[in-house]
């Protein structure tokens, strides 16, 4: 087990360096820079600012400094656009917003997805099975930027039940629509994965044994089948986290939430280099560490993985 964790760590760290380097290279290779916008600064002032942020140094020194600060001090530098604010401050302020929406959406998706998927598998080829799988396919096919405004139209602008946008702390009713919008597609994926996994497990020998020894159907399903049947859902956690992040970008945009995704898009459009690199680095590190945890959990849950 320890060797497994060490090996995963050895892959994770170079991956983080690759992502940061890739983003850094893309930004530096692209034509223009933060100052080449519509408002031209006088050359003397631009020179001063460049010196202040260290942008006048040769590229390898800039690269070395950025990388060193991130890896050894967890310091992402200062934002160009939001003057005087460090990237760390911006991340600290916006992360709770994204995390609240993302985590709630994922929990909701797990709850609904696993329930619907298991019932569909237990009643395979029934009307319920077909209906829920068609609904799941619909969930996968409707883009969240279509679903979000439609939910707003129904629940905020027609029925006046829920607020249409804005962040109002946690918990609040403002979170309901963003969470629903974000979780729809994961509910659908998880329901499909659960159904597939359960169908396979329900046919296996150990379930037949459990039934043969006279366990109640409830015990068979909850104690035996779910544990094996949910393995695909566990391994989907990694990709789901990545997709949740991109989903929050759109959802934060629709519902005007001051989260990480919103800042990231703004930073990309403004060419706020430290902020882009900071958010990309932060997201990659979080994502890769989460993936590592998922893999370890997977190895722990499924004895077959451990011995490989």
């Amino acid at each position: 087990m320890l060797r497994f964790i060490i090996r995963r760590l050895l892959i994770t760290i170079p991956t983080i360096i690759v992502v940061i380097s890739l983003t850094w290279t893309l930004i530096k290779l692209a034509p223009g820079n933060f100052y080449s916008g519509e408002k031209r600064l006088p050359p003397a002032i631009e020179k001063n600012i460049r010196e202040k942020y260290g942008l006048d140094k040769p590229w390898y020194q800039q690269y070395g400094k950025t990388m060193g600060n991130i890896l050894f001090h967890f310091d992402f530098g200062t934002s160009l656009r939001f003057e005087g604010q460090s990237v760390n401050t911006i991340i600290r302020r916006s992360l709770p917003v994204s995390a609240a929406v993302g985590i709630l959406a994922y929990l909701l998706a797990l709850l609904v997805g696993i329930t619907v998927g298991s019932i569909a598998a237990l009643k395979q080829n029934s009307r319920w099975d077909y209906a829920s799988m068609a609904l799941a396919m619909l969930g996968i096919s409707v883009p969240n930027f279509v679903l979000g405004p439609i939910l707003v139209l129904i629940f905020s602008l027609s029925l006046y039940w829920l607020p249409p946008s804005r962040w109002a702390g946690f918990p609040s009713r403002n979170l309901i629509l963003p969470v629903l919008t974000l979780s729809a597609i994961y509910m659908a994926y998880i329901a499909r994965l659960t159904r597939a996994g359960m169908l396979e497990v329900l046919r296996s020998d150990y379930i037949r044994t459990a039934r043969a020894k006279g366990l109640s159907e409830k015990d068979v399903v909850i104690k035996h089948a779910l544990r094996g049947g949910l393995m695909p859902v566990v391994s989907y956690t990694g990709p789901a986290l990545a997709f949740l992040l991109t989903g929050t970008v759109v959802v934060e945009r629709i519902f005007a939430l001051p989260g990480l995704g919103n800042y990231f898009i703004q930073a990309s459009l403004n060419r706020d280099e430290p902020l882009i690199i900071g958010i990309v680095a932060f997201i990659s590190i979080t994502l890769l560490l989460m993936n590592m945890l998922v893999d370890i959990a997977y190895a722990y849950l499924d004895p077959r993985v451990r011995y490989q």
Partner: protein
Amino acid sequence: MVEPEIKIGSEEAVAEDVHADAGEFVHGTSLWRDAWRRLLKNKLAVFGLVVVVVITIASIIGPTLIKRIFGFTPDYIPTQNIQLVRSFPPFTGLDGKFSWLHPMGTDNAGRDQLARVLQGGQISLFVGIIATLVSLIIGVSYGAISGYVGGRIDNLMMRIVDVLYSLPYVIVVIVLLAMFRSQTPRGQLTLLFIALGSVSWLTMARIVRGQVLSLKNQEFVLAARATGVSAPRIIFRHLVPNTLGPVIVYTTLTIPQIMLSEAFLSFLGLGVQAPLASWGSLAADGAQNIAIFPWQLIFPGVTMALTLFSLNFLGDGLRDALDPQMRTT
């Protein structure tokens, strides 16, 4: 554990087909005919196929047809009877009265929405297909070479795929598109193909590698090697054609994914640029007016969802038809 049941199932299916063909012994049932028959039995897949074909044809000939019949192009902005509000609901003319002219209503500038949606479909489908081709070429070559060469190189190539898998690639694509923003809509479209195609080949590479691994020790490959056929020729003439089934299935499932990514990027203002429009950019424009002119979002959004829905069903149906072992999922 599971395999015996599946085998019985497919043998039965074969037996059934043989029985059905008993009258005409000369025609053997080829893999493709067998798969086609199985596909036709799947109602949802047939529904998907029909919808995809109809929407594709409508997108290709629709704008021209509307020009011929009603006399306006998707970009036509009315200049007579100009009013403050030009966006009207479905089946309403620009005078606010019932009219057959605009079955999907009009947008902010008074342009016909049906024509806009059909034209947007051209771009969305085009991006979906071209970017999928890019990913297909990279993925198939990468996977086939990795699988055929084997050994250390295979190991290294697959580790690279593993590392790329764990990257938050959409984030990198956003940075790429924002940084290299092209001044011309065409330039941006090309950038979009490259960006989307170059991040979505990973699964394809894995699938093809797996297939090649199981094929490369079969007799026909040994025979080819024994007669002195070069390695690239073995890979692309002998091995790749035999992986066609899974490749087709996965390609069908990649198109909706890429179309969704394109729409997502266009929604953020990083994808297709005006004057070109895709379903994503139309929906983005519509989302801003959702409170007053909901039809501006609903029509492009629903058309897109319907297309993706159908493509997904078609893909699932093809998988069941071409790859009976995967049937359970």
